[in-house]
């Protein structure tokens, strides 16, 4: 065992608020990658890379054998990258943070092997299925990851991908209809100016929430609910989170000046 990991339950104080959570130290490699100590079903610790860009967690065959993850699996003669499919791990522990029933893919990822060669044994990647369950805070200065209880229930990424590939929306020949749950009462047009795309208010319905909030035809929508609104798609994304009755901060560009408005979304259709 390379070193002993002490898991601390600490409080981190951010500006103006306190976040409680389990603080997990990480080691920073010279390449800028972070590694954490992970136990699977009480076995280990093993060194894995923590990766917010990984949609799945990966462990190599060495770890999988060592932790007894492949006990009920038949021996496979041909498996590219030693790929053995997905295994559900009953107890997946990163530092002091335990999670149950986490899926990992068993494979000998070539990049992980390369890291192993240079930095000592590294046996996999901790990805989305683990960290998505928490409000995770990454602090490179204190070299800690803090896992606070979260309410997000991560979907099964592999299943979701299969579904997406089979559904019309996933194939991209049919656009996804976004609702924006409130009526605001304006229309827009897209324009390109100096090579930049922008969105201009075309009409504002008389007596509607947009008019009451001070929106004018010709206004360039710059920000809605702090999101950039340069295209219709941007606007839809920004409106998607707006609920009826909610007030939304809007920044428009009007005659060369930034004007801040507040629009209220009304219930309706």
């Amino acid at each position: 065992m390379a070193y002993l990991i002490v898991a601390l339950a600490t409080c981190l104080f951010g500006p103006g608020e306190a976040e409680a959570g389990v603080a997990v130290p990480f080691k920073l490699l010279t390449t800028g990658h972070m590694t954490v100590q992970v136990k699977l079903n009480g076995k280990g610790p093993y060194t894995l890379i923590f990766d917010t860009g990984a949609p799945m967690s990966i462990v190599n065959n060495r770890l999988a054998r060592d932790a007894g993850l492949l006990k009920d699996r038949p021996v496979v003669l041909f498996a590219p990258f030693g790929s053995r499919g997905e295994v559900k791990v009953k107890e997946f522990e990163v530092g002091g943070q335990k999670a149950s029933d986490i899926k990992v893919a068993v494979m000998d990822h070539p990049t992980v092997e390369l890291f192993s060669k240079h930095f000592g044994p590294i046996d996999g990647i901790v990805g989305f299925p683990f960290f998505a369950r928490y409000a995770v805070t990454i602090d490179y200065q204190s070299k800690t990851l803090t896992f606070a209880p979260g309410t997000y229930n991560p979907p099964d990424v592999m299943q979701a991908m299969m579904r997406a590939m089979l559904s019309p929306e996933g194939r991209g020949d049919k656009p996804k209809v976004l609702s924006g749950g409130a009526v605001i009462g304006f229309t827009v047009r897209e324009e390109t100016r100096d090579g930049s795309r922008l969105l201009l208010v075309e009409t504002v319905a008389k007596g509607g929430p947009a008019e009451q909030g001070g929106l004018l035809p010709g206004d360039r929508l710059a920000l809605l609910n702090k999101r950039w609104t340069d295209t219709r798609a941007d606007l839809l994304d920004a409106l998607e989170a707006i609920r009826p009755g909610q007030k939304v901060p809007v920044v428009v560009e009007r005659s060369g000046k930034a004007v801040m408005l507040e629009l209220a979304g009304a219930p309706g259709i």
Partner: protein
Amino acid sequence: MRPLTLLALLASAVIAAEPAGKKTVEVPYKLTQPKHILVRAKINGKGPFNFIMDTGAPALFFTEAVAAKAGVKADEKGWGACETFELEGGLVVPSAKGRVDTPFQLEGMNGMGIGGAEIHGLIGYNILARYRITIDLSSDRMRWTPLDWKPDGPMGVRNQGGGSDAGQTSLELMGSMMKGLGGLLGRKATPTVTARGQAGLVLRDETAGPVVASVLKGWPAEAGGIKPGDRLVMVDGKTVTKASEALGQVEKMEAGRKLPLSLDREGKRLEVVLELAEGY
């Protein structure tokens, strides 16, 4: 005034109001289909470009096409300095440097970029390390707080006794961990989107059901003769008892779709068919 100048002004005004280097910024993001955290950034006022927030990447990466659009020139080692690098939400990263690398570093990501949102790059260690970042996927924003330190590197593996292949290995380790797995992870980041069609009816819930509070002037409901005080009974053939149920009936209908409505006006039944219009 050009749009970028406006945003730059806004950003500087916001930053000036806070003690330098301490302000927490809420950064909006989207989860792509393969569950990558996608954030948007403007480089030198151009864009926005789509980036994956990736602790498995050692640095900021963007494609040659992005570098060309933003006017970023790479030095002989492949690093390009951005004059401004601004994340959506108003976070301006001072003196951001990135690797300009299309064919090699982003090859895995290209598999995900077909249609929908194209992935233009990765935000990795050399940017991320300058912030304390909280990701809570139940919220649509991350929280980024600038830290009071300057992180090293990334330095690669040349000092690790890597032997003769250290140069090439170093390059490979400089890519994303997920490089090469793009094909496994789906072909498309986010589907294209379109707005639902609008009727222009503002509703309020009463005991008897949803009642028309107002009709937007010039919108389909006005053309259909609907008036404030009318009670909405059925939407597309289905009885509704609340405004939210009415919305539920139409939320997947695009502009141009014909929408039958049944209303009650002082005890008389009114049947109307509206053509949903584009609007918000």
